[in-house]
């Protein structure tokens, strides 16, 4: 049961009754008895909460930060139900308004809409539905909770999708579908067509022109149907929070954003994307990943406090990627790479092209520029040491034929996509 504000108000009116009319113990008791009677009447006449039935419908997944609607249907088998209903969700599910006034006629049902704007990636589950059923006097209410399970999967926000149009433009230039003056755009022979003014004269196929009445040029297209294997490191180092334009996010989330942009681009250029999330074992795996399947697979991933098992990851990649492919490892350039990944590089590099993308920390760069007092200079020294370590690792990896993209969180998705396009243009896939 629950009381309402009216019970307090009634007792407050009772102050006048007691003070002016019945200033005695009897007066207090009389007023109290009236109150108890009102409460009892309300409790008896309020619609039962226990026998209500609930069902849900609506969104099952939404991009983090965007609005979705989950519907809750209340079926009332008893007498008319009036009162307040609360649909409780975890705070990060971002329910806009979780309490609504409810009025369901006897034997009827009502559908209530709740708007959710999840603030954090992952599976957001509904907690309990609590109904407070008011009596006819509005002094007291019956209250009870029901479990009505529902899960909304908050997908990665994919903020970097705004970079996609200019990247696709570049891809089309490479493709030869647009007039382009870039020489060497593409390495695979595509077709022959008639010369038009503006084509590079060096691309004229003289042998074909001799057989035809027109001048014929060869067209080239970039490589396609190549395999891109994206490996996402979800181990220890991916948990670190890095400040970006969107506030502090774990490295993992920035890496996901970059992976999504890369796979969107790759699937537009008809490359095949395999996705693998790995910590000390396989966390998620999407072969021949389309974007919807990829975001679904990424949504529930969380960073784990374990060490990245490079040996197992390399074995898994070698097992999956049958033919030569571009292996993109989204991780963090930490000294542990030297012992973990570096000794295994020859095995990978002989068969695949390895690209390591790492989220740099703007805080470290800011510390490195610190001057003025002793504390700032010591911080600068410590930050410089970290940066020097990263430069050394980058150079070391480059010596083994590994491409490294080390960029700040806001720049990483674009930088990785650019590197992919330039590799494609150079025909290195």
């Amino acid at each position, binding site marked *: 049961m629950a009381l309402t504000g009216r019970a*307090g108000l009634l007792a*407050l009116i009772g102050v006048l009754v007691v003070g002016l009319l019945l*200033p005695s113990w009897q007066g207090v008791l009389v007023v109290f008895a009236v109150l108890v009677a009102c409460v009892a009447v309300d409790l008896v006449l309020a619609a039962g909460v226990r026998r209500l039935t609930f069902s849900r419908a609506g969104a099952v997944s939404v991009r983090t930060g965007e609005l979705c609607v989950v519907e809750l249907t209340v079926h009332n088998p008893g007498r008319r139900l009036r009162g307040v209903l609360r649909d409780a969700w975890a705070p990060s599910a971002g329910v806009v308004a979780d309490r609504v006034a409810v009025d369901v006629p006897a034997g009827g049902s009502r559908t209530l809409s709740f708007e959710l704007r999840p603030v954090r990636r992952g599976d957001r589950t509904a*907690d309990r539905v609590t109904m407070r059923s008011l009596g006819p006097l509005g002094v007291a209410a019956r209250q009870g909770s029901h479990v009505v399970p529902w899960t909304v999967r908050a997908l990665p926000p994919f903020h970097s999708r705004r970079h996609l149009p200019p990247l696709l433009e570049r891809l089309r230039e490479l493709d030869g579908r647009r007039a382009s003056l870039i020489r060497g755009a593409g390495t695979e022979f595509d077709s022959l067509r008639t010369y038009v003014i503006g084509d590079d004269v060096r691309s004229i196929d003289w042998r074909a022109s001799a057989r035809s009445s027109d001048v014929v040029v060869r067209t080239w297209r970039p490589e396609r149907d190549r395999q891109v294997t994206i490996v996402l490191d979800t181990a220890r180092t991916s948990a*670190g929070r890095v400040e970006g334009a969107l506030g502090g996010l774990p490295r993992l989330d920035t890496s996901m954003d970059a992976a999504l942009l890369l796979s969107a681009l790759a699937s537009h250029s008809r490359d095949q994307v395999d996705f693998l999330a790995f910590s000390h074992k396989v966390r998620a795996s999407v072969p021949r990943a389309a974007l919807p399947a990829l975001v679904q697979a990424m949504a529930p991933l969380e*960073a784990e406090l374990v060490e990245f098992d490079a040996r197992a990851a390399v074995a898994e990649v070698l097992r999956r990627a049958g033919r030569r492919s571009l292996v993109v490892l989204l991780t963090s350039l930490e000294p542990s790479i030297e012992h973990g990944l570096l000794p295994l590089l020859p095995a990978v590099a002989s068969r695949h092209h390895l690209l390591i993308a790492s989220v740099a*920390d703007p805080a470290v760069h800011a510390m490195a520029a610190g001057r003025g007092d002793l504390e700032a200079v010591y911080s600068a020294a410590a930050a410089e040491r970290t940066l020097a370590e990263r430069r050394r690792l980058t150079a070391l990896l480059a010596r083994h034929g590994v491409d490294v993209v080390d960029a700040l969180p806001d720049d990483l998705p674009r930088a990785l996509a650019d590197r992919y396009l330039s590799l494609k243009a150079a025909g290195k896939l």
Partner: protein
Amino acid sequence: MTAVSPDSRRIWTAARGPLLIGVVVLFAAVVITLLRGTGEGGSLDPRSYRPEGSRAVAALLERNGVRVELTDNASSVKGATLFVTQPDLIDPRRLADLSGRAAATVLLAPATGVGRVEPGTRQPGCPLAAKAGAATTGGVVYEGEQRCYDSTLVRTGTVTTIGYGGIFTNRDLDSEGNAALALSLLGQHERLVWYVPSAADRSQQKSFGDLVPAGWKFGALQLGVAAVLTALWRARRLGRVVPERLPVLVRAAETVEGRARLYRRSHAAGHAAEVLRQAARDRLAPLLGLPAGEDPSEEIARRTSRPVTSVRALLHDNGPVDDRGLVALADELDALENEVRKG
């Protein structure tokens, strides 16, 4: 069923344990109170069975047809014997008024005495108490019209003053002629008003509570009820608090900050200086078009007006550096870098 709120059976299951404990405590309290008997009243209380109580004399009086009325305000004393156990607690004017209205008055040890004697068995030596004979008296000596027991019991008009209350107690009632004396003093009339004054009688001042009108008092009580009901309204949650598992958030730069503190605590100025110099060399070499790792000193000297030795000293000197020197070195390296960028 999806309902998860407790039904009446679950509430009973959960509550019966505490309820049982409550009943046991209550039962134990009742039993202990009954076994201890009435602890009521102090000395000379007609309800008290203790040695210093006066249950025995009250019972004797009632057997002899005297109605004993215990009171703490003595409003109606007309035609009755008034027995005041602590007359000093009453306002003298009120006491005079009361004893004027009462048929007889017995005051126990008021502060109007003229001397003190030890309590003990004394002979009456006066017609007033001749029938009772020897009794346990003493305490305070008074002056009055009729004096008995060496002036420890005196009578002036209808007012009898006795200096020691031993004869009324359960302990001493049965010794000597105590009982006879007590009965003759208190049993003079059919009604005995046994006046045990309370502390309020002395002050004669009304408390704040007496002055406030009843309407205000009970109104305040009702206001309390309203406050409690309002609190209950606000305190009741609409459903439970929802828990959530939050991911651990560690700032990625924390290890770097930790290293900076280590440098500082160990005053590793030399080491920090070398790191800063190395970083400056690494940044300057590509600026000047030199391969990484090559010493840029000579090239810098050529581009700027600085002598080679001073540039080399700045970029390579491994001499001892203290904390103040480190701050200066960082600024000098910055100045050199800016000069090269501009030049």
